[in-house]
């Protein structure tokens, strides 16, 4: 049997209806009531395709359509696997972040506790420093006072040494004056003796002795006057 070449239906492209399995039947009879939208006048020019032996619902799906659904199913399966992987990853990540947060909170509490301890220590040390600062200031003041007293004492000692030296000098001078005055008195006594026994001595010797006694007594009186002046100062 030869198949005539396909001729496009003149009544327009038939609209696919519900899949009844009878639309392409070859034993189609013109006496049967045509479906709506099909022009019976053109029935002879419609190309008919033989239906294969297997007639299951999946077999009736076109091959291209079937591949498309297979790809979609495979893709959905892949996506499901990815979603499962992501879920596991996020689970683990969340668990570890939670553990880290717990550890950090523990560290924060430990640091807070140590900080509080250190703050108490700082307060105690500050108080100690204040006390020590006051003690140091007191000690410094005392050192300065003692240094001043030591220096003043040194001044007093130096001054006293100068006074002692001066008094020693005055004492020495007084001794010399005393000796000179004693010699003056003694020599004058001797002169009086000479004068009482003047016949035994020449007048010139007596006059010379008297002059030497006068000079000695003037020197003694001068030294005495100087001593008196220094004592008066």
């Amino acid at each position, binding site marked *: 049997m030869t198949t005539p070449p396909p001729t496009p239906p003149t009544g327009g492209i038939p609209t696919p209806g519900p899949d009844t399995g009878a639309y392409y039947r070859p034993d189609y009879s013109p006496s049967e009531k045509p479906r709506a939208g099909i022009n019976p006048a053109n029935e002879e020019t419609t190309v008919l395709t033989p239906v294969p032996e297997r007639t299951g619902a999946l077999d009736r799906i076109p091959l291209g359509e079937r591949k498309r659904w297979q790809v979609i199913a495979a893709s959905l399966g892949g996506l499901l696997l990815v979603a499962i992987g992501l879920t596991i990853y996020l689970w*683990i990540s969340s668990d570890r*972040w939670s553990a880290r947060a717990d550890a950090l909170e523990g560290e924060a509490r430990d640091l807070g506790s140590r900080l509080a301890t250190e703050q108490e220590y700082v307060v105690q040390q500050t108080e100690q420093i204040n006390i020590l600062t006051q003690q140091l200031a007191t000690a410094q003041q005392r050192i300065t006072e003692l240094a*001043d007293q030591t220096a003043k004492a040194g001044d007093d000692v130096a001054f006293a040494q100068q006074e002692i030296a001066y008094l020693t000098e005055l004492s020495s001078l007084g001794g010399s004056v005393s000796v000179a005055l004693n010699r003056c008195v003694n020599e004058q006594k001797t002169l009086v003796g000479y004068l009482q026994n003047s016949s035994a001595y020449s007048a010139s010797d007596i006059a010379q002795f008297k002059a030497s006694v006068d000079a000695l007594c003037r020197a003694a009186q001068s030294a005495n006057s100087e001593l008196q002046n220094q004592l008066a100062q």
Partner: protein
Amino acid sequence: MRRALLVAAALVLTGCGALPDLPPPLPSDFVPSPTISPSNHGPLLSPDGFDAAQRMTVRVRNVGCGFLATGTGFMIDEHTLVTNRHVIEDSSSLEVSTYDGHVIEATAARSTTAADIAIIRVEESLPVAAKLADRDPQVGDAITVIGYPEGGRLTTTSGIVLGAVEDPLNGSVGAVLGTSAQVEPGSSGSPVLNADGEVVGVIYAKNDADQSFMIPISTLQDLLSQESLLIPQQIACGT
């Protein structure tokens, strides 16, 4: 279809890139190391709490020939100190005492006629020496004078530099500097310190307006660099 797969793969890869990373391990120590240590603080204070300026300043006692006088000086090295010439004149012995009352005998003295400056040598070493400034202070600069006014306690006064004037005692070559710091007899020879603690002058006189006069550090530096200007002084009476 293929394009859809590529888009899906790209979305998956992009989504993986946007995923949060796993947490890094915790650091072993959350407390940073201290950036300072006690050794970084210089020995500005002695163990007894006195600063360098107080420790380098000494009290000078001139046991003169029939008189006793006091003044101030400061160490420029461990055996040498600077004071005024009029502080050591006509002395039979010179003694210096430190801030803590330690007394040291002077062994030699030198002075100059170019300024009221004298240099004293001591056998015993002193721990702190003054740092001399490189230049004279400017008008308006804040200064600090530390010394033993009236031969009393170690005292610190402050003021500013008023400017260069002629020496009111006509004893110095060149100008001297007037200051507003109040000093007393006994402060002669006191070091004048700038804000950095460097010696910028030596107090030697005052006037009735309670202004003090100092020999600028440049003059002292010149004298120290020209030994021939310093004439030895005999520490004995009758010279």
